[in-house]
């Protein structure tokens, strides 16, 4: 099989059942940051990053210097009071950290930008609530236009770097839910293509130990997941005729029937990317030294 990144819970015995894999480890407790890298390393696996769902603001975390070398994804509710973030900036700016903030809280549109402008990579997390499209467009513009260097804001930065003018560019990988890149396993070692599948018991393998001999390309569920986008066209859904489809792949389809905001946003995103690509192509290739 092609190497996949495995998203798994923090479980040492689970780590020992797999080897030579790249792991994204979901932590239960923030204090586990201190030991996760060593535990993964001892099991002969590589740590891509540790993910923690923090039920409060980023400012409520007391960051430690020993976390600086651990690749981290922190899902927080918001940034929190800027003064408290500022007091920890000397550590935060040196950390291998990506902060995930949900867009159900309007303040997070601004806070993602604040963090990015201070050199902290951040990611907007889309939730069931309809985004504020104008604020989202502003955030996307800031993320992509790069008027002055700042840390990446995903998923916009991700799409901008992967964008191909003649193809589709999805961004589910930013949230570890792209089946072409990630497999998800639970404590029992069951393997699924997504965390949703894992939760509802839809496994492609019952035991992680079977992974080495598994040809995922021959798995019907995998093929189905890869071609899921086609249903938009088969069902003739509104997203299938949207210009911005190529950069959203129906991510906001639940809002498409009731709002023009999603179409306007995706179309503008696409226009900026294409314009940027065109400018890039027009650049003179310099003579070589």
């Amino acid at each position, binding site marked *: 099989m092609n190497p996949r990144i495995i998203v798994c819970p923090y479980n040492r015995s689970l780590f020992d059942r797999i080897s030579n894999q790249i792991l994204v480890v979901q932590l239960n407790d923030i204090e586990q940051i201190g030991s996760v890298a060593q535990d993964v390393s001892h099991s002969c696996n590589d740590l891509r990053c540790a993910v923690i769902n923090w039920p409060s603001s980023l400012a409520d975390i007391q960051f430690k210097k020993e976390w600086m070398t651990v690749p981290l994804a922190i899902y927080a509710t918001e940034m929190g009071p800027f*003064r408290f973030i*500022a007091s920890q*900036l000397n550590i935060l700016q040196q950390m291998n950290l990506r902060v995930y903030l949900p867009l159900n809280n309007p303040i997070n549109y*601004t806070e993602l*930008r*604040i963090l990015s*402008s*201070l050199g902290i990579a951040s990611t907007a997390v889309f939730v069931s609530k309809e985004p504020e499209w104008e604020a989202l467009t502003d955030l996307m513009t800031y993320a992509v236009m790069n*008027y*002055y260097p700042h840390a990446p804001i995903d998923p916009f930065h991700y799409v901008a770097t992967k964008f191909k003018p003649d193809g589709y560019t999805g961004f589910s990988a930013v949230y570890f839910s792209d089946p072409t890149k990630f497999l998800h396993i639970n404590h029992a070692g069951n393997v699924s293509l997504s965390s949703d599948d894992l939760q509802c018991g839809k496994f492609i393998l019952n035991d992680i130990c079977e992974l080495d001999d598994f040809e995922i390309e021959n798995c019907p569920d995998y093929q189905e997941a890869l071609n899921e986008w086609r249903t938009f066209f088969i069902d003739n859904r509104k997203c299938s005729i949207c210009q911005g489809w190529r950069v959203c792949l129906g991510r906001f389809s639940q809002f498409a029937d009731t709002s023009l905001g999603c179409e306007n946003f995706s179309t503008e995103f696409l226009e900026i990317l294409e314009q940027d690509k065109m400018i890039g192509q027009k650049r003179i290739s310099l003579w070589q030294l």
Partner: protein
Amino acid sequence: MPNVLFTQSCVRSCPYCFASEQMKESDPNDLLSWENLIYVSDFLKSSGERSISVLGGEPTLHPDFLEFIIYLLERDFVVRVFTSGIMANTKLDKITSALMNIPDEQLTFIVNLNNPSQTPSSLAETESVKRFLSMFGTKVMCGFNIYRVDFELDFLFQYINCFGLKKSIRLGIAHPIPGAKNIYININDIDHVIARLMNYVPFFERFRIRPSIDCGFPLCRFTDTQLGWFTRHTGSGAKFGCSPVFDIGPDLRIWSCFPLSSYYKRSLFEFDTIGDIYRFFKEKHRMIRSEVGGIYPECDECSLREDEVCSGGCVAHLLSIFKDEAPVRMPVVCQ
């Protein structure tokens, strides 16, 4: 150094206020947003600017004042805050605890002070200012706007010594707002102002306090002896320019300076760099000065003005002349 307005409202109503016209036109609830602050920071940084002046109205009235200042410091700006120093004790405590340990080179407060006996204010206001000065001591430089010929500076010497402030006084001269009615120093009174200022030379020397004169003073009104004194006591001498510094409003509209706030107002989004803005407003100043060289008739022929050693006084005076005369100028000049 560009000025950024956090707010458009003030806690005082100084008779000479040259921001009044701008504030009258604006919504007092118009506050600088985080998004605009980030845009301004990026804009200045991309132009290579490392310093920023924070203005209002009264900038400390902004609900995120402290966060904004910390943000600017984190973005590695040298920050100057122009304030009245009037604020509630709770706010002062909060600001003090957060900013007290920032090095003086990185953060300065310029507190615009009015003489309590000549520009009366309430006792509470005066006490509030004193609390601010006592808290921030060495971070504070006094600013004083001269708007009457019988001005008195004694209280400033007292404040500097009493509260351990920076040993420097920023002296501005009140300028007219074209088309508005503020109190300012008449052109004919500038000689008196300078004479009175020089009367304070023994005090400046005795207390080792350096005067720093702001824009709009005409060079020719100082004698060579007076200029020599300024050179000796300020190190670099006095500056007699009137070049656009430019102010950035909370909505990112920009103008050359407060007295010229209604003259060729633009948006920051129209420009790519600070250099573009300077060139734009410099050209507008040049247009005015091509009509009238300076505030005195002899400015037209003055070689020092032509060589840009002196600007020929504040350009707001010239625009005021245009406003009061028959419409004989090109419309593009007296817009």
